[in-house]
Protein backbone atom coordinates (compact mmCIF):
# COMPACT_ATOMS: atom_id res chain seq x y z
CA UNK A 1 0.00 0.00 0.00
CA UNK A 2 1.25 3.46 -0.72
CA UNK A 3 0.03 7.00 -0.82
CA UNK A 4 -0.37 6.77 -4.58
CA UNK A 5 -2.42 3.55 -4.94
CA UNK A 6 -5.70 5.45 -4.93
CA UNK A 7 -4.84 7.14 -8.24
CA UNK A 8 -4.34 3.83 -10.06
CA UNK A 9 -7.85 3.12 -11.43
CA UNK A 10 -8.38 6.65 -12.76
CA UNK A 11 -4.86 6.76 -14.17
CA UNK A 12 -5.34 3.53 -16.11
CA UNK A 13 -8.64 4.64 -17.62
CA UNK A 14 -7.33 8.08 -18.46
CA UNK A 15 -4.02 6.96 -19.99
CA UNK A 16 -5.71 4.26 -22.05
CA UNK A 17 -8.13 6.77 -23.59
CA UNK A 18 -5.34 9.26 -24.19
CA UNK A 19 -3.16 6.74 -25.96
CA UNK A 20 -5.90 5.98 -28.48
CA UNK A 21 -5.73 9.49 -29.89
CA UNK A 22 -2.46 11.07 -28.79
CA UNK A 23 -4.42 13.99 -27.36
CA UNK A 24 -5.22 14.88 -23.78
CA UNK A 25 -8.69 16.43 -23.44
CA UNK A 26 -7.94 17.49 -19.87
CA UNK A 27 -4.61 19.10 -20.63
CA UNK A 28 -5.11 21.13 -23.82
CA UNK A 29 -2.71 24.04 -24.13
CA UNK A 30 -3.90 27.10 -25.99
CA UNK A 31 -0.51 27.82 -27.51
CA UNK A 32 -1.53 31.25 -28.72
CA UNK A 33 -4.79 33.12 -28.16
CA UNK A 34 -6.20 34.86 -31.23
CA UNK A 35 -9.24 36.48 -29.63
CA UNK A 36 -12.24 35.44 -27.54
CA UNK A 37 -13.20 32.59 -29.87
CA UNK A 38 -9.97 31.49 -31.54
CA UNK A 39 -6.67 29.94 -30.44
CA UNK A 40 -3.71 28.14 -31.96
CA UNK A 41 -3.37 24.56 -30.70
CA UNK A 42 -0.50 22.42 -31.99
CA UNK A 43 0.04 24.78 -34.91
CA UNK A 44 -3.60 24.91 -35.99
CA UNK A 45 -6.21 27.61 -35.47
CA UNK A 46 -9.32 26.29 -33.79
CA UNK A 47 -12.70 27.72 -32.82
CA UNK A 48 -13.15 27.85 -29.03
CA UNK A 49 -16.60 26.49 -28.25
CA UNK A 50 -15.89 25.15 -24.77
CA UNK A 51 -15.25 28.27 -22.69
CA UNK A 52 -17.45 30.21 -20.26
CA UNK A 53 -16.95 33.45 -22.14
CA UNK A 54 -20.70 33.90 -22.63
CA UNK A 55 -20.69 37.61 -23.41
CA UNK A 56 -17.30 37.48 -25.13
CA UNK A 57 -15.87 40.36 -23.08
CA UNK A 58 -12.33 39.01 -22.53
CA UNK A 59 -10.98 41.31 -25.27
CA UNK A 60 -13.41 44.16 -24.67
CA UNK A 61 -11.58 47.42 -25.29
CA UNK A 62 -12.77 49.13 -22.12
CA UNK A 63 -11.96 46.10 -19.94
CA UNK A 64 -8.48 45.68 -21.43
CA UNK A 65 -7.74 49.39 -20.97
CA UNK A 66 -9.03 49.35 -17.38
CA UNK A 67 -6.87 46.34 -16.52
CA UNK A 68 -3.79 47.94 -18.09
CA UNK A 69 -4.35 51.17 -16.19
CA UNK A 70 -4.89 49.28 -12.93
CA UNK A 71 -1.60 47.41 -13.29
CA UNK A 72 0.25 50.67 -13.99
CA UNK A 73 -1.46 52.42 -11.08
CA UNK A 74 -1.80 49.74 -8.40
CA UNK A 75 0.73 47.08 -9.31
CA UNK A 76 0.57 43.45 -10.39
CA UNK A 77 -0.64 41.87 -7.14
CA UNK A 78 -1.97 42.76 -3.70
CA UNK A 79 0.24 40.19 -1.87
CA UNK A 80 -2.30 39.84 0.91
CA UNK A 81 -5.83 38.85 1.87
CA UNK A 82 -8.96 40.99 1.99
CA UNK A 83 -8.73 40.65 5.79
CA UNK A 84 -5.24 42.19 5.93
CA UNK A 85 -3.57 44.45 3.34
CA UNK A 86 -5.42 43.18 0.24
CA UNK A 87 -8.50 45.42 0.20
CA UNK A 88 -8.04 48.40 -2.11
CA UNK A 89 -10.60 51.04 -2.94
CA UNK A 90 -11.33 49.20 -6.21
CA UNK A 91 -12.34 46.03 -4.32
CA UNK A 92 -14.79 48.00 -2.18
CA UNK A 93 -16.12 49.92 -5.18
CA UNK A 94 -16.78 46.71 -7.12
CA UNK A 95 -18.72 45.36 -4.12
CA UNK A 96 -20.86 48.50 -4.13
CA UNK A 97 -21.37 48.33 -7.90
CA UNK A 98 -22.34 44.64 -7.87
CA UNK A 99 -24.78 45.15 -4.99
CA UNK A 100 -26.34 48.10 -6.83
CA UNK A 101 -26.56 46.22 -10.13
CA UNK A 102 -28.25 43.22 -8.52
CA UNK A 103 -30.38 45.24 -6.10
CA UNK A 104 -28.90 43.85 -2.88
CA UNK A 105 -27.74 45.78 0.17
CA UNK A 106 -24.46 43.94 0.65
CA UNK A 107 -21.80 42.26 -1.44
CA UNK A 108 -18.47 40.62 -0.64
CA UNK A 109 -15.79 39.96 -3.26
CA UNK A 110 -13.73 36.75 -3.05
CA UNK A 111 -10.69 35.66 -5.04
CA UNK A 112 -12.57 33.09 -7.17
CA UNK A 113 -16.12 31.89 -7.65
CA UNK A 114 -15.09 28.58 -6.10
CA UNK A 115 -13.99 30.40 -2.97
CA UNK A 116 -17.15 32.52 -2.85
CA UNK A 117 -19.30 29.38 -2.47
CA UNK A 118 -16.76 27.68 -0.25
CA UNK A 119 -16.53 30.79 1.93
CA UNK A 120 -20.26 31.48 2.17
CA UNK A 121 -21.43 27.91 2.85
CA UNK A 122 -18.67 26.97 5.30
CA UNK A 123 -19.19 30.16 7.26
CA UNK A 124 -23.01 30.20 7.30
CA UNK A 125 -23.70 26.60 8.33
CA UNK A 126 -22.05 25.07 11.36
CA UNK A 127 -22.29 21.62 12.96
CA UNK A 128 -23.94 20.21 14.91
CA UNK A 129 -27.06 22.41 14.90
CA UNK A 130 -27.31 23.51 11.25
CA UNK A 131 -28.24 21.48 8.16
CA UNK A 132 -27.38 22.13 4.50
CA UNK A 133 -29.67 20.84 1.74
CA UNK A 134 -28.16 20.78 -1.75
CA UNK A 135 -29.38 20.01 -5.23
CA UNK A 136 -27.81 16.68 -6.25
CA UNK A 137 -26.21 18.23 -9.35
CA UNK A 138 -24.57 21.15 -7.56
CA UNK A 139 -21.03 22.08 -8.56
CA UNK A 140 -18.00 20.67 -6.73
CA UNK A 141 -17.45 23.98 -4.92
CA UNK A 142 -20.83 23.65 -3.20
CA UNK A 143 -20.03 20.08 -2.12
CA UNK A 144 -16.62 21.25 -0.92
CA UNK A 145 -18.21 24.15 0.94
CA UNK A 146 -20.41 21.62 2.77
CA UNK A 147 -17.38 19.53 3.60
CA UNK A 148 -15.46 22.52 4.92
CA UNK A 149 -18.50 23.51 6.97
CA UNK A 150 -18.82 20.03 8.47
CA UNK A 151 -22.57 20.54 8.92
CA UNK A 152 -24.95 17.68 8.13
CA UNK A 153 -25.54 17.77 4.36
CA UNK A 154 -28.56 16.26 2.62
CA UNK A 155 -28.99 16.02 -1.16
CA UNK A 156 -32.34 16.46 -2.87
CA UNK A 157 -33.20 15.37 -6.39
CA UNK A 158 -32.01 17.68 -9.12
CA UNK A 159 -34.43 20.50 -9.96
CA UNK A 160 -37.13 18.79 -7.91
CA UNK A 161 -38.80 21.13 -5.36
CA UNK A 162 -41.00 18.39 -3.88
CA UNK A 163 -37.90 16.30 -3.18
CA UNK A 164 -36.52 19.29 -1.23
CA UNK A 165 -39.82 19.68 0.60
CA UNK A 166 -39.84 16.03 1.70
CA UNK A 167 -36.35 16.42 3.15
CA UNK A 168 -37.27 19.65 4.94
CA UNK A 169 -40.30 17.91 6.47
CA UNK A 170 -38.13 15.06 7.77
CA UNK A 171 -35.77 17.35 9.67
CA UNK A 172 -35.71 17.14 13.42
CA UNK A 173 -37.26 20.06 15.30
CA UNK A 174 -33.95 20.57 17.03
CA UNK A 175 -32.29 21.67 13.78
CA UNK A 176 -31.35 25.32 14.04
CA UNK A 177 -30.30 26.91 10.72
CA UNK A 178 -31.24 25.43 7.34
CA UNK A 179 -29.36 26.44 4.20
CA UNK A 180 -30.68 25.34 0.80
CA UNK A 181 -28.13 25.49 -2.06
CA UNK A 182 -28.95 25.41 -5.75
CA UNK A 183 -27.76 26.90 -9.03
CA UNK A 184 -29.36 29.01 -11.73
CA UNK A 185 -28.13 27.43 -14.94
CA UNK A 186 -26.21 24.20 -14.44
CA UNK A 187 -22.83 24.18 -16.13
CA UNK A 188 -22.78 20.68 -17.61
CA UNK A 189 -26.23 20.27 -19.22
CA UNK A 190 -27.24 23.94 -19.44
CA UNK A 191 -30.56 23.20 -17.76
CA UNK A 192 -32.13 25.76 -15.40
CA UNK A 193 -33.67 25.59 -11.94
CA UNK A 194 -37.26 26.44 -10.94
CA UNK A 195 -35.79 29.02 -8.56
CA UNK A 196 -39.11 30.55 -7.53
CA UNK A 197 -40.60 27.22 -6.43
CA UNK A 198 -37.45 26.35 -4.49
CA UNK A 199 -37.38 29.73 -2.74
CA UNK A 200 -41.08 29.48 -1.80
CA UNK A 201 -40.67 26.01 -0.31
CA UNK A 202 -37.43 26.86 1.51
CA UNK A 203 -38.95 29.94 3.10
CA UNK A 204 -42.11 28.04 4.07
CA UNK A 205 -39.89 25.83 6.26
CA UNK A 206 -37.75 28.66 7.62
CA UNK A 207 -34.73 27.83 5.46
CA UNK A 208 -32.39 30.32 3.76
CA UNK A 209 -31.54 29.97 0.07
CA UNK A 210 -28.11 30.26 -1.49
CA UNK A 211 -28.40 30.55 -5.28
CA UNK A 212 -25.27 30.18 -7.39
CA UNK A 213 -25.68 32.17 -10.61
CA UNK A 214 -22.13 31.58 -11.83
CA UNK A 215 -23.29 30.53 -15.29
CA UNK A 216 -26.51 32.54 -15.47
CA UNK A 217 -25.32 36.01 -14.37
CA UNK A 218 -25.20 38.22 -17.46
CA UNK A 219 -27.01 35.54 -19.46
CA UNK A 220 -30.60 35.52 -18.10
CA UNK A 221 -33.02 38.28 -17.09
CA UNK A 222 -34.01 41.48 -18.86
CA UNK A 223 -31.02 43.25 -17.31
CA UNK A 224 -28.66 40.28 -17.15
CA UNK A 225 -29.12 39.80 -13.41
CA UNK A 226 -29.54 36.08 -13.82
CA UNK A 227 -32.23 33.44 -13.61
CA UNK A 228 -33.58 34.92 -10.38
CA UNK A 229 -34.34 38.12 -12.30
CA UNK A 230 -35.91 36.14 -15.15
CA UNK A 231 -38.20 34.42 -12.60
CA UNK A 232 -38.86 37.70 -10.76
CA UNK A 233 -37.63 36.35 -7.43
CA UNK A 234 -34.24 38.03 -7.04
CA UNK A 235 -35.18 40.09 -3.96
CA UNK A 236 -36.19 36.92 -2.10
CA UNK A 237 -32.89 35.10 -2.66
CA UNK A 238 -31.02 35.13 0.66
CA UNK A 239 -27.52 34.68 -0.74
CA UNK A 240 -26.74 35.25 -4.41
CA UNK A 241 -23.31 33.97 -5.43
CA UNK A 242 -21.46 34.53 -8.67
CA UNK A 243 -18.14 34.57 -10.42
CA UNK A 244 -16.05 37.00 -12.45
CA UNK A 245 -14.64 34.22 -14.63
CA UNK A 246 -17.59 33.78 -16.96
CA UNK A 247 -19.69 36.71 -18.20
CA UNK A 248 -17.48 39.17 -16.28
CA UNK A 249 -14.43 37.97 -18.25
CA UNK A 250 -11.94 38.06 -15.38
CA UNK A 251 -11.33 35.95 -12.26
CA UNK A 252 -12.87 36.37 -8.82
CA UNK A 253 -16.22 35.75 -7.14
CA UNK A 254 -18.86 37.35 -4.96
CA UNK A 255 -21.74 36.83 -2.55
CA UNK A 256 -24.57 39.37 -2.40
CA UNK A 257 -27.40 39.55 0.12
CA UNK A 258 -29.98 41.76 1.79
CA UNK A 259 -29.11 40.27 5.18
CA UNK A 260 -26.92 42.70 7.14
CA UNK A 261 -25.30 39.63 8.70
CA UNK A 262 -23.51 38.94 5.41
CA UNK A 263 -20.82 41.30 6.67
CA UNK A 264 -19.95 38.75 9.39
CA UNK A 265 -18.34 36.63 6.69
CA UNK A 266 -15.49 39.12 6.59
CA UNK A 267 -14.27 37.85 9.95
CA UNK A 268 -15.53 34.27 9.90
CA UNK A 269 -15.01 32.95 6.38
CA UNK A 270 -11.66 31.22 6.03
CA UNK A 271 -11.65 31.22 2.19
CA UNK A 272 -12.04 35.02 2.44
CA UNK A 273 -9.51 35.58 5.21
CA UNK A 274 -6.71 33.22 4.32
CA UNK A 275 -6.01 33.77 0.65
CA UNK A 276 -4.74 36.73 -1.35
CA UNK A 277 -7.32 39.13 -2.76
CA UNK A 278 -7.92 39.45 -6.53
CA UNK A 279 -5.23 41.46 -8.33
CA UNK A 280 -5.93 45.08 -9.34
CA UNK A 281 -6.09 44.06 -13.02
CA UNK A 282 -8.68 41.35 -12.30
CA UNK A 283 -10.85 43.75 -10.31
CA UNK A 284 -10.56 46.49 -12.94
CA UNK A 285 -11.48 44.11 -15.77
CA UNK A 286 -14.51 42.77 -13.87
CA UNK A 287 -15.64 46.31 -13.03
CA UNK A 288 -15.38 47.39 -16.65
CA UNK A 289 -17.23 44.28 -17.82
CA UNK A 290 -20.00 44.95 -15.29
CA UNK A 291 -20.43 48.46 -16.70
CA UNK A 292 -20.69 47.00 -20.19
CA UNK A 293 -23.31 44.48 -19.08
CA UNK A 294 -25.32 47.17 -17.31
CA UNK A 295 -25.33 49.49 -20.32
CA UNK A 296 -25.45 47.21 -23.35
CA UNK A 297 -28.12 44.53 -23.81
CA UNK A 298 -27.04 43.67 -27.35
CA UNK A 299 -24.41 41.15 -26.26
CA UNK A 300 -27.03 39.05 -24.51
CA UNK A 301 -29.33 39.25 -27.51
CA UNK A 302 -26.55 38.03 -29.80
CA UNK A 303 -25.64 35.29 -27.32
CA UNK A 304 -29.17 33.91 -27.36
CA UNK A 305 -29.44 34.13 -31.16
CA UNK A 306 -26.22 32.13 -31.40
CA UNK A 307 -27.42 29.63 -28.79
CA UNK A 308 -30.71 29.06 -30.58
CA UNK A 309 -29.00 28.63 -33.94
CA UNK A 310 -26.59 25.96 -32.63
CA UNK A 311 -29.26 24.20 -30.57
CA UNK A 312 -31.60 23.98 -33.56
CA UNK A 313 -28.80 22.69 -35.79
CA UNK A 314 -27.76 19.96 -33.33
CA UNK A 315 -31.35 18.89 -32.76
CA UNK A 316 -31.85 18.64 -36.50
CA UNK A 317 -28.67 16.55 -36.83
CA UNK A 318 -30.26 14.06 -34.44
CA UNK A 319 -28.00 14.60 -31.45
CA UNK A 320 -29.42 13.91 -28.02
CA UNK A 321 -29.21 17.42 -26.58
CA UNK A 322 -29.32 17.53 -22.76
CA UNK A 323 -31.57 20.59 -22.26
CA UNK A 324 -33.67 23.19 -24.10
CA UNK A 325 -31.76 25.99 -25.89
CA UNK A 326 -29.35 27.87 -23.62
CA UNK A 327 -25.74 29.02 -24.01
CA UNK A 328 -24.55 25.60 -22.79
CA UNK A 329 -25.40 22.94 -25.34
CA UNK A 330 -24.37 19.46 -24.26
CA UNK A 331 -24.88 16.34 -26.36
CA UNK A 332 -24.96 12.82 -24.95
CA UNK A 333 -22.66 10.11 -26.27
CA UNK A 334 -22.91 6.34 -25.80
CA UNK A 335 -20.09 6.14 -23.26
CA UNK A 336 -16.64 7.34 -22.26
CA UNK A 337 -14.79 5.84 -25.22
CA UNK A 338 -17.21 7.22 -27.79
CA UNK A 339 -17.20 10.64 -26.13
CA UNK A 340 -13.42 10.66 -26.16
CA UNK A 341 -13.35 9.70 -29.83
CA UNK A 342 -15.94 12.35 -30.69
CA UNK A 343 -14.04 15.03 -28.78
CA UNK A 344 -10.89 14.17 -30.68
CA UNK A 345 -12.77 14.18 -33.98
CA UNK A 346 -13.99 17.73 -33.32
CA UNK A 347 -10.45 18.88 -32.49
CA UNK A 348 -9.29 17.44 -35.80
CA UNK A 349 -12.06 19.43 -37.44
CA UNK A 350 -10.96 22.66 -35.80
CA UNK A 351 -13.39 22.89 -32.88
CA UNK A 352 -12.63 22.81 -29.15
CA UNK A 353 -15.44 21.74 -26.80
CA UNK A 354 -15.35 20.26 -23.29
CA UNK A 355 -15.29 16.51 -22.80
CA UNK A 356 -17.12 15.59 -19.59
CA UNK A 357 -17.32 12.05 -18.23
CA UNK A 358 -18.49 10.47 -14.93
CA UNK A 359 -18.18 11.19 -12.04
CA UNK A 360 -18.09 14.83 -13.15
CA UNK A 361 -21.45 14.58 -14.92
CA UNK A 362 -25.05 13.97 -13.83
CA UNK A 363 -26.52 10.46 -14.17
CA UNK A 364 -23.18 8.93 -15.20
CA UNK A 365 -23.49 10.36 -18.71
CA UNK A 366 -20.62 11.06 -21.09
CA UNK A 367 -21.11 14.34 -22.89
CA UNK A 368 -19.55 16.93 -25.14
CA UNK A 369 -20.28 20.30 -23.59
CA UNK A 370 -20.36 23.20 -26.01
CA UNK A 371 -20.75 26.76 -24.85
CA UNK A 372 -21.82 29.60 -27.08
CA UNK A 373 -20.43 33.13 -26.86
CA UNK A 374 -21.80 36.47 -28.00
CA UNK A 375 -18.38 36.88 -29.62
CA UNK A 376 -18.89 33.88 -31.92
CA UNK A 377 -19.19 35.13 -35.48
CA UNK A 378 -21.42 33.46 -38.03
CA UNK A 379 -18.25 32.02 -39.57
CA UNK A 380 -17.24 30.53 -36.19
CA UNK A 381 -20.64 28.88 -35.87
CA UNK A 382 -20.52 27.63 -39.48
CA UNK A 383 -17.30 25.83 -38.60
CA UNK A 384 -18.86 24.40 -35.41
CA UNK A 385 -22.00 23.19 -37.16
CA UNK A 386 -20.13 21.65 -40.05
CA UNK A 387 -17.80 19.83 -37.64
CA UNK A 388 -20.83 18.43 -35.77
CA UNK A 389 -22.43 17.47 -39.08
CA UNK A 390 -19.33 15.42 -39.94
CA UNK A 391 -19.37 14.03 -36.40
CA UNK A 392 -22.94 12.81 -36.71
CA UNK A 393 -21.95 10.93 -39.89
CA UNK A 394 -18.92 9.42 -38.12
CA UNK A 395 -21.04 8.35 -35.14
CA UNK A 396 -23.62 6.70 -37.36
CA UNK A 397 -21.00 4.04 -38.09
CA UNK A 398 -19.53 3.85 -34.59
CA UNK A 399 -20.43 1.27 -31.98
CA UNK A 400 -17.83 2.01 -29.30
CA UNK A 401 -19.15 2.50 -25.80
CA UNK A 402 -16.94 2.26 -22.74
Amino acid at each position, binding site marked *: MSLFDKFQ*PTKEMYYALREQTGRDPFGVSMDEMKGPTRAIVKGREIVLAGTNNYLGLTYDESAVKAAQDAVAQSGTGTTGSRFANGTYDAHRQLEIDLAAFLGFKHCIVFSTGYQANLGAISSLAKPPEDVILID*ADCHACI*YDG*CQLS*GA*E*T*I*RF*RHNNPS*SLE*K*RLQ*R*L*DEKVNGKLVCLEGMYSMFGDTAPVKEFVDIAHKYGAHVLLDEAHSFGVFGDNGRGLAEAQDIIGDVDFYTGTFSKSLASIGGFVASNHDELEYLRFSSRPYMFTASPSPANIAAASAALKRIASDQSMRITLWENAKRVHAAFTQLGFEVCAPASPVIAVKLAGKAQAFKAWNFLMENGVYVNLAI*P*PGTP*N*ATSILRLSVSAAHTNEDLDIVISAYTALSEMLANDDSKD
Partner: protein
Amino acid sequence: MTSIQEDDDLVFRKICSLIEPLNEKGVKLTRDTDLIADLEIDSVAVLDVVMDIEDNYDISIPVNTISEIKTIGELVDAIHAIKKEQS
Protein backbone atom coordinates in the same frame (compact mmCIF):
# COMPACT_ATOMS: atom_id res chain seq x y z
CA MET B 1 -44.14 -6.37 13.39
CA THR B 2 -41.12 -7.97 11.77
CA SER B 3 -38.22 -9.20 13.85
CA ILE B 4 -34.93 -7.33 13.69
CA GLN B 5 -33.38 -10.19 11.74
CA GLU B 6 -36.19 -10.25 9.16
CA ASP B 7 -36.12 -6.48 8.83
CA ASP B 8 -32.36 -6.62 8.35
CA ASP B 9 -32.75 -9.17 5.54
CA LEU B 10 -35.43 -7.06 3.91
CA VAL B 11 -33.26 -3.95 3.94
CA PHE B 12 -30.29 -5.93 2.66
CA ARG B 13 -32.31 -7.38 -0.21
CA LYS B 14 -33.79 -3.99 -1.07
CA ILE B 15 -30.35 -2.42 -1.25
CA CYS B 16 -29.08 -5.27 -3.41
CA SER B 17 -31.97 -4.78 -5.83
CA LEU B 18 -31.13 -1.08 -6.12
CA ILE B 19 -27.41 -1.73 -6.62
CA GLU B 20 -27.78 -4.64 -9.05
CA PRO B 21 -28.19 -2.43 -12.17
CA LEU B 22 -24.76 -0.92 -11.43
CA ASN B 23 -23.13 -4.30 -10.75
CA GLU B 24 -21.67 -4.60 -14.23
CA LYS B 25 -19.07 -7.19 -13.26
CA GLY B 26 -21.70 -9.48 -11.75
CA VAL B 27 -20.04 -9.57 -8.31
CA LYS B 28 -21.92 -11.66 -5.72
CA LEU B 29 -23.39 -9.14 -3.30
CA THR B 30 -22.84 -9.78 0.41
CA ARG B 31 -22.75 -7.58 3.50
CA ASP B 32 -18.98 -7.35 3.04
CA THR B 33 -19.09 -6.16 -0.58
CA ASP B 34 -17.22 -2.85 -0.87
CA LEU B 35 -19.27 -0.48 -3.03
CA ILE B 36 -16.37 1.37 -4.60
CA ALA B 37 -13.50 -1.16 -4.50
CA ASP B 38 -15.47 -4.32 -5.41
CA LEU B 39 -18.24 -2.91 -7.61
CA GLU B 40 -16.20 -0.07 -9.11
CA ILE B 41 -19.15 2.30 -8.66
CA ASP B 42 -17.98 5.91 -8.59
CA SER B 43 -18.66 8.13 -5.58
CA VAL B 44 -21.45 10.06 -7.31
CA ALA B 45 -23.23 6.84 -8.35
CA VAL B 46 -23.15 5.74 -4.71
CA LEU B 47 -24.85 9.01 -3.73
CA ASP B 48 -27.50 8.41 -6.39
CA VAL B 49 -28.23 4.88 -5.15
CA VAL B 50 -28.59 6.31 -1.66
CA MET B 51 -31.15 8.81 -2.99
CA ASP B 52 -33.28 5.86 -4.16
CA ILE B 53 -32.90 4.27 -0.73
CA GLU B 54 -33.94 7.54 0.95
CA ASP B 55 -37.10 7.77 -1.10
CA ASN B 56 -37.87 4.09 -0.56
CA TYR B 57 -37.68 4.33 3.25
CA ASP B 58 -38.72 7.98 3.56
CA ILE B 59 -35.57 8.85 5.48
CA SER B 60 -32.72 11.32 4.87
CA ILE B 61 -29.21 9.93 4.86
CA PRO B 62 -26.66 12.75 5.17
CA VAL B 63 -23.75 12.91 2.71
CA ASN B 64 -21.47 12.99 5.77
CA THR B 65 -22.73 9.50 6.77
CA ILE B 66 -22.44 8.12 3.24
CA SER B 67 -18.82 9.19 2.91
CA GLU B 68 -17.95 6.94 5.88
CA ILE B 69 -19.76 3.92 4.44
CA LYS B 70 -17.69 1.38 2.51
CA THR B 71 -19.68 -1.87 2.46
CA ILE B 72 -23.28 -2.91 1.86
CA GLY B 73 -23.44 -4.11 5.48
CA GLU B 74 -22.44 -0.69 6.77
CA LEU B 75 -25.15 0.84 4.58
CA VAL B 76 -27.76 -1.55 6.04
CA ASP B 77 -26.65 -0.63 9.56
CA ALA B 78 -26.79 3.11 8.78
CA ILE B 79 -30.35 2.76 7.44
CA HIS B 80 -31.45 0.98 10.63
CA ALA B 81 -29.87 3.67 12.80
CA ILE B 82 -31.51 6.48 10.84
CA LYS B 83 -34.89 4.76 10.63
CA LYS B 84 -34.86 4.49 14.42
CA GLU B 85 -33.79 8.10 14.85
CA GLN B 86 -36.24 9.61 12.35
CA SER B 87 -39.30 7.51 13.24
